[in-house]
Structure formats: C-alpha cells, structure tokens
C-alpha cells in the first residue's frame, strides 16, 4: 500500500487526470441540466487528452521543433510528437461533437421549452 501511495505522489499528472475524469463522469450522471451534462462531457474529454499528453513528456526534453538541420537529431532531447498529433485531431473532433450536441440541446429547448431532463421526459409522456 505504501509503495502504491508513493507511486501516486510521483505522478501528479495522473492523479489530476483521475480526479478530472471522475468529476466529469459524476456530473454527466447526476446533473439534470443538459448544458451541465455537456460541461461534464467536455471535462471528461479534455482529461483523457491530458493523460495522453502527459505520456509524451520526457525529462530534460524540449518542444518537438528541430533546432538545426545539420547535426544528427537525438530523439531523447525532443518530446514525443506522436501523442501531440493524435490529441490535435482529438481536440478538433471533441469540439465538433460539442457543437453538434449543443445544436441538439438548442433544438430540444425549442420544442419542449426546457433544458431539464425530467421535465422533458414528463412532457414526452
């Protein structure tokens, strides 16, 4: 158990990821308001991207922009660029899904006049 706690303390990024992920998930499950559910979804998405970016970091490494073309490149001196590329795509797709879901929320509000889950279910019956 003690070594597990030590492993957590060496990874503050991982602890922040777990807290943000669970917090976003909790919001999505418990809140009735659709906009708040979407805020929770946004927090979950960004926390997963945060986890991927934290994997790409290397101690003592700089940003993955090559300094000079003449010397041979040492891969240890630059951060891993592949998670960055993956997450760039993921961020844009995340905002696209957010836009579609917000448009859906606006359409629901126009039809039912409420953003509250239970009220809409009542009106559906």
């Amino acid at each position, binding site marked *: 158990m003690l070594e597990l706690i030590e492993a957590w303390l060496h990874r*503050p990024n991982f602890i922040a990821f777990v807290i943000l992920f669970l917090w976003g998930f909790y919001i999505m499950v*418990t809140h009735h308001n659709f906009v708040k559910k979407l805020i929770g979804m946004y927090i979950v998405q960004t926390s997963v991207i945060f986890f991927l970016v934290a994997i790409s970091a290397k101690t003592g490494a700089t940003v993955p922009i090559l300094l000079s073309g003449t010397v041979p490149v040492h891969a240890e001196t630059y951060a891993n660029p592949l998670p960055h590329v993956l997450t760039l795509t993921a961020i844009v797709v995340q905002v696209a899904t957010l836009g*579609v879901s917000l*448009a859906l929320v606006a359409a629901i509000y126009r039809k039912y006049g409420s953003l509250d889950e239970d009220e809409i279910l009542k009106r559906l019956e």
Partner: protein
Amino acid sequence: MTFSFEVPLLILLILTAAGAILVKDLVPAVFILGSYSFFLALVWACLGAVDVAFVEAVVGAGLATVFFLLTLFRTAQKDTRLYPSSYRGAALIGLPLLGFLILYAANDLPKFGDPASPASVHVSPVYLENSLHDTRTPNVVTSVLMDYRALDTLIETVVIFTAGIACALLLGRSRE
C-alpha cells in the same frame, strides 16, 4: 523537482473544473470552463506540447466557449433544479470504485518523463530523426500531421464538415 511549476497549475485546473459546475448560473459556469481550458493549455505548454496548447487555447477556450454562449443565449440560462438526482447514490459508490481501479494501475505506468517509456522508444524516434530530411519542416508535429498522416487529417476535415452540416440542419429547421 520538475513539478514545481506544474502542481499549482494542476490545483487551479481542478478548482476551475469544480467551479464550473458548482455555480448555479450557467453563463458564469461557461466562463469558468473557458478559464479551465486556458489553464489546461498552460499545463500542456509546461509539458512541451506547444502545438496542443495552441489548439486548446484557440479551439477549447475560444470556440467551445462561444458555442456554449450561443446556445445559452437561445435557451434557459439558469439551472432550475437544485436537489440532486436519484442516480447520485449509485454514482457516489460506483465512481470512487472506478477511480480506485484506475489508481491501482498507476504503478504499472512508466515513470513521468521517462525517455525510455514504451510510447517513446519504438516508432517515435524514427519520425524525430527523419522528418527534417523527408519533409523539410522543422516542426515534427506539423510534418506528421500534414505529411506522413495527411490522409488522417483529410478524414478529420470530413468529420468537421459532417458536424457542420448536422449543426446547420438542426438549427436551420426551426427558422421556418
């Protein structure tokens, strides 16, 4: 320690994520969410992911906030419900369990900032060492995104196009 800059930012991140929900009024909640995105961009800049930080600052803190505000100006701006949902008990039992399972696996993850971690040894050095010769672009992220993986980026624009069409269809029908 390498975390000296990062830990205050992480605490601010968690505080803003909490504040975005605990506020009753939805417009301030969205602005707090925008500041959450901004702190996230700062953390990523600390971790060396400058391209991701730029995109998060522009798309996450800028565009997502604008989307939320546009929706709120068309709809209700207050969270009318004050008492909690009936799923709350299940969530309070299940989610800490899930969290403990995730944290239990923490010891098996590679050390933070380890240059020999599995993600950084197999194929990523090949891109770092050859991209300047192959693509004549000093920024490796750009050369992977726009050159080696250009087809992926093309399909990504198809996804954004589809999302744009879906938004236009959903919002346009109501004006009749």
